[in-house]
Each structure stands twice: as structure tokens, then as C-alpha cells.
């Protein structure tokens, strides 16, 4: 199990159609968190065909990379809703009372929360905390 990493990227709000056709530079993973909003972790540049799109740097999330065995042991039993079976897939909702985003890919699960709840994740799921020495930006490039 890995210590958490800060997940940097871009957050974009645009028309749904524009987001369907958005392009992000880099090795990114795109969370479509709403019909009109995405978070593209790992992205530094975005092209969005919407002149009114809002494109902002996003640094508010941290993630824990888990194997499926770790996920089943520590997280799954706190999730009340059906988990997706397709891969890759994004799911979001409450787990143990915390708003989480779960990215399921072929290798494992990325548990993502806003950094303000990182301490609660550590406590409620018994996951590793940030090391005291981690103060510099760590950019995680995640494969889609």
C-alpha cells in the first residue's frame, strides 16, 4: 500500500459537448465528475472548445493507490453503493461518511479525496498518512 500523493491537474467547467471533445496534454487521467465538469489529473494544458470554459489548476486532491485486495479489505465494506464492474471506471459517493472518488483500472484502485479530508481517510480506513517530510509538490502521472 502506498502513502498518499497529491494529485495535480486541471479542473475544467464547460458545456457537456465541449468536454466530450476536450483535449488534455500529457499522460492524464480524466475524472468526469459532472456532466459539465472534469478534473484531469496530470494535465497541464487543456484545449476545450468552449469560449466560456473555466480552466483552473487543481491541487486540492490526494490519492491512495490500492491493490484490489487492499481495496476489498479496507474500503469496499464502507461503500453502500454498487461498485462499477467495467474497467476503467470512475465512481464517486460517500464511503465511511467521506466524499470519495474511486478510479478503478486494470491494476488497482485509486482512492481520491480532497486534501481537507485526508486525515479522516487515514483514521476511518486506516490508510497510511502523508510523511512529515512531504512538503514539495509531487505530481502523479496516471495512465488512463
Amino acid at each position, binding site marked *: 500500500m502506498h502513502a498518499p500523493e*497529491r494529485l*495535480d491537474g486541471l*479542473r475544467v*467547467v*464547460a458545456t457537456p459537448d465541449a468536454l466530450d471533445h476536450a483535449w488534455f496534454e500529457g499522460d492524464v487521467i480524466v475524472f468526469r465528475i459532472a456532466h*459539465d*465538469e472534469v478534473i484531469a489529473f496530470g494535465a497541464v494544458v487543456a484545449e476545450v472548445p*468552449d469560449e*466560456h*470554459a*473555466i480552466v*483552473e*489548476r*487543481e*491541487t*486540492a486532491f490526494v490519492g491512495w493507490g490500492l491493490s484490489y485486495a487492499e481495496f476489498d479489505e479496507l474500503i*469496499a*465494506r*464502507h*461503500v*453502500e453503493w*454498487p461498485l462499477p464492474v467495467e474497467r476503467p471506471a470512475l465512481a464517486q459517493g460517500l464511503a*465511511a*461518511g*467521506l466524499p470519495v472518488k474511486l478510479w478503478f483500472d486494470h491494476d488497482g484502485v485509486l482512492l481520491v479525496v*480532497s*486534501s*481537507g*479530508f*485526508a*486525515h*479522516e481517510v487515514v*483514521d*476511518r480506513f486506516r490508510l497510511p498518512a502523508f510523511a512529515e517530510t512531504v*512538503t514539495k*509538490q509531487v505530481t502523479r502521472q496516471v495512465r488512463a
Partner: protein
Amino acid sequence: MRFALDDQPVDFVDGDSVAVAVVRSGQHPQHGGALCLTGDCGNCSADVDGVPFTRTCLTPARPGLRVRRHPAVGGPPLQLDPPKNPVQSPVHAGVEVHRRHVDVAVIGAGDSGTAEAARLRAAGREVLVLDSGDGDDVVGVYPGPLVVVRTPEHMLHVHAHEVVIATGAAEVHPVCEGNMLRGIVLAGAADLLRSKGVDLGTTVTVDIAELSRFEGTDGRVTGVVFSDGRSEACDTAIVTSRTKAPRDLLARMVSDPNVRVVGPAAQRFDLPPAPVDGFVCPCSKITVGDLQMVWDKGFQHLELVKRAALCGTGTCQGGVCMPHLRSFVSDKQGVEAAPFTGRPASRQLTIAEAAADVFLDPFRRSALHDEHLKLGAQMDRFGGWWRPWNYGDAMREYWAVREGVSLGDVSTLGKMIVTGPDVVEALERLYPTTIADIRPGRSRYVLLLNERGHLIDDGMVCRESDDRFVLTFTSGGAAFAEAWVRDWIDTWGLDVRIMDRTISHGAINVTGPLAGALLQRVGVAEPPKFLQHRHATVAGIDCHIMRLSFTGEASFELHHPVAHSVELWQALMKAGRDMNITPHGLQALFALRLEKGHVIVGMDTELDSTPRRLNMDWAVKMDKPDFIGRTALARTADLPDRRRLFGFTMDGPAPTEGAPIYVGERIVGHVASTFTSPILGKAVMLGWQKHEPWADTVTIDGRPATVAHTPFYDPEGARARA
């Protein structure tokens, strides 16, 4: 093999339940009452290994078990260990919750449940069968449907597309004189005991319809008196009945189209004869006389009789009393009374079982949380966040703001970016303030009203360009405000993009007379003027600087990507070291803003506070064509309104917040916020008067207080603009 009953050994054989072993030893798991040994009644419940109200008929006997009978009168003593930390979420309760998502859950593995499960499986459905005989004790069915199950190892939440309740029907218990004696068993229990080799001695079998009463000595049955007057002596009375009682408690808990009942649980059975004597509800020791008493007092409906007499509220939740209670009420009313509503849990749960996987609402930490702790902050919870209350000396923090420079962590403020072709139109409708005339680079204080014209939040509108704005909201109101803004813009069908930045941007308030000088040290050559804002690099970090003032002194909010909060905070603290820079917490902030008369929504305001009641009509432009709340404000503008928030001052120390405000002997309102202002040399307050005529002089805390204009401090606002 033996276990302990009230610290005395009881022998048992393989396959015995605790109850069977106790009966075999010639005793009763309680102090009397008919036994069904099927889990339907509570007459065998006892404390098993420290867990009271455990049905011993469903508890396999094991060596070393410690069984204690409940007291004959009253309940078992509570066993409460106080939590080590009462504010900590019970995150590590001893009982886990496991979850399953299934197509169909069938509750009950009797004839009807088994048949239904087979039929469903044949139709290609995925079926999970839950039966207490297998250790799956269903304790509740909720809309969803959700089935909550207690297993020997953990709690199980079953999320099913469909739930089938096939719990069968129970034997009817006897209700008559002597029905709480020991040695009375239902027919099914007698069969079970005999199959286990228990010697029942001389037995008499009696049908409920022919039963008059039981006779006994020393608490044990010695004979049965039949309704035709004859009596028979016995060691054990076996009770049969031609009718049954549907086990429909789970079905009565939930109204969900995806929950259905099959088999005897759904069947209508004849009621037994109306009871005339004895204990109707053995769990709560409710007699027929008790029912008659509450009936005579006017509680003449089954649900009312239940509530008034507590009949059906005990261990078995109506398993024993329901048919008799219905018969009692039906006999009085002349029509058949329906069963009472069922509610979870159907079985007694431990606190750990009930609290399994229940969590307190989480509170966020700002990115500066550890910095605050290093500086000795006392953290507390406000508006969904952990925030510094003070850093050990609130007055030092206060003076740092008034005379020097201070930092405040305002990362918790709600923040939102809005853009789009219709953004001005949307904001004009959302806010009672004029938006269109805010020039790029300028900002304006705004109220957020609901349709009734009541204040629900406040904040700033910062215009960045013709079609891009940054909005701020209060910390506690941010989540609601976001939903409010999104819902209305969606309702109006306006073309607006909305991005919430509350968690994404940290914000540090640099405030005090030396705030501008500090910013110059960290690279902001020309800090923005009052109510202006702009983007700039501060200590190497991209910031959106907003000049405003909540403290009454020059204030610059530095909004920045949250990942750089610590870096920015440390740079500012370092740059201001020779200025004796001191961070301030909420305790000082509340005092500073009170001297300026600034209200805090939710602290000084009430749920129905209008701008007029808050003396904030200046923030409402009724000449705008429309905004949320305008119709209500226009309608009520000429109506009398007795409520008004006033500023007060008084000599001496500030009274307690919430203190009543008197005019003579009459309480006319209360104090919302108080502070003993060192710079003004008196106590300042905001408080409500709710009776006219409003008084200029009132009594608070036994001392005279005077209505005063706000701001109390720097009424011209020169310091904030400096």
C-alpha cells in the same frame, strides 16, 4: 459440557440451545412465562456473555457461556463505558458492516421461503436466502430496499432489487390468569424439548380457545383449568391453538413496492378470544387490566393503546401480544383492528451493532492545519472546518490586528468562479445588489436572500472581466450557497459556467495597519485599494488579492492554489517577523468584526432576518427589476415590523452572549454578540429588540446599556481604506 446460569453450572448436550438446556435443568431462562423456543417471544431472553435481551432459544449452548437472568422486576442494568474522547467519531467500533448487492433477498427459509427462492432461481434471478436458523438474524427492512442483518460475526447490509418476506406464522401464546408461571410451553416447544430428550413430566395439552386459567404454586404451573370448568394437574402445560399469528413485523416496517410478503406471513388468521385476565405483554408486564385502564382514559385506538400502555414495545415487538391486543381492541370497537406499525429494530441490538459503520460528519482541515498547531492554536469546529480559535492569547492577536499586522486563515470561505454569456443576468437575479455596474477589478459586498427575503448568506462579488466573476460566501454557508446558485441558474436556464473553488483555493487574510507594508516586502509593490482586487505574485505564488475588511483594518485576502498555502503562510510570517506579526484566530476575529458592527450570518441573524431587520437596506436595490426575495421584500416593506438588530454599549465587562435584554421587567430581546472592547473602553454588543417601541436604554445583565450606532469603531472606515 456446562455453562453458567446465574453463576451456577448447567449441563447441556450437543445441539442444545441455551434455553433447552436451562429447561432440561428444571429451570426457566427468565422467571416465568410460556416458551415458544422459536424466537417469537421474549420469554427466554437473558444476558448472555454480557449482552442482555439475548434470545436464549436461538443461542447455541457452548462451554463457558455466562448466562444471567434479567431481574424479575425492572430491566437489566445498563453497561455503559463512557467514550474516551466524546468528540471523536466512533470509527473503530467493534462490529463491522459487510455489504452485499443482490437481485432478490428472501427472508425466511421455511416452506414458503424455500419455495419462493426456488421459483425465483428457476426464473433466472439471483437469490440470497436469510434465515435466523443459519445465524442471519434480520433486524430491519428499510426503503431501498435495504435489509439489515445481524450475523454472529458482523452486521450485514443487503441491498436488493427485491425483498421477499417469508417469515411464516407463529403460534399464539396464552393470555389468562397464571400465564406467567414456569412450566408452560407452546406445542412446538414441547415437540422440540421432547426431541431433545427433555423430560416434561406429567403434561396437559390445552387449546387456547378452551383455556380458562393456569394454577400453580411457587411460581410453577401445577394445573390447567379449562373453560368448561374442569381442571387437570400437570408438571408441564402444553398450549395449542387452531389459529396463528403472521410473523409480519418486518413487513410492517417498510412501505416499498419492491418488498412483498408471501406464505403464512401474508395470511389473515382469526384472532384469539378477547383476553379477560393475565399478562398480555410479558415483555413489558402489561396486563389486561392495564389495557382496560388506558382504554377507559380515552386511548381508544390500537396505536393509542400501544403507546399509552407500552403493550408491544418490549423485547418481542408484538410477537406475543399482537393477536391479543388486536382482539381486545376489536372486541371493544366491533371491527377488526389492524396491527400496529412495525419499526426497526425487530431484535435487540447492542450499541456497537447499531453504531456499526456509523460515522460523524467529517470536518475538513485547511492546508494550514499543521501550521496552526505548531503555533499553539486551539482548534475548534466551525462551519464544517477545523479552525484556530486562538493561538493562546486572543488579546495579543487582537492588538496585532489593530496596531500591527496579523494573518488569518480564511481558506474556509466559500469561493466560486462564474462565467458565461448570461452571467451578469444570473448574478443580478441572485443578489439584491446591482451587479452590472461593478467594474472589472472592483468588488462589492452582497447579501444572499431566499424567496422570502430572509438573509441566508453574504459575501463578495469580484468582477474579473465582462463575463467572469469570483464569488465568495461564508464558510458555513458555502455548500448550501453553491447548491443554491447552481439550482437557480439551472432553473432559469441561463448560460453560465460555475466552478466551485472552496476546497481548491486557500486564502490568507493579511490585516492590520502594516498589512500593506508586509505585502510590499513579499513582492506586491502596489497593493490594491479598498474594494479592489487583482492577480499578483506574492512570495513567488500566484495569488488573487482581494482588498476588503472584516476586521476594520486594512485587509488583503490572498487566494491561492491550496497546495501553496503552507509556503505562502511561512513566507508571510517570515517577512513580518520584525513587525511582530501574529496570527489571529476566530476569537479575536469575532471581536474585531463586532467593533465594526459586521454581522455574522447565523450568529447574529435569525432564520427570518430580513435586510430591514438587520439595518442593511442599503445593500438592497429595490429599483432593480427582479432578484430572489424582491417580491417578498416589496410586499412586506410597508408592514409593521417589531424586530430589529441594534448595537448596544455598556460600561464594564460584556455580558454573556444570549443574555436577555430587558426594558423594565419585560424581556424584549437577547444579545447576539458581545465583546469588552479594550480600544473603546466599554462593552459592545449586537442584540435584538423584538417589541415596540424600541428602547434607547435597556437593561442587560442587571446593568444599563444604551443603543448605539454601528460601527462602534472607526465609523468613517478610514482605517480599512488606509
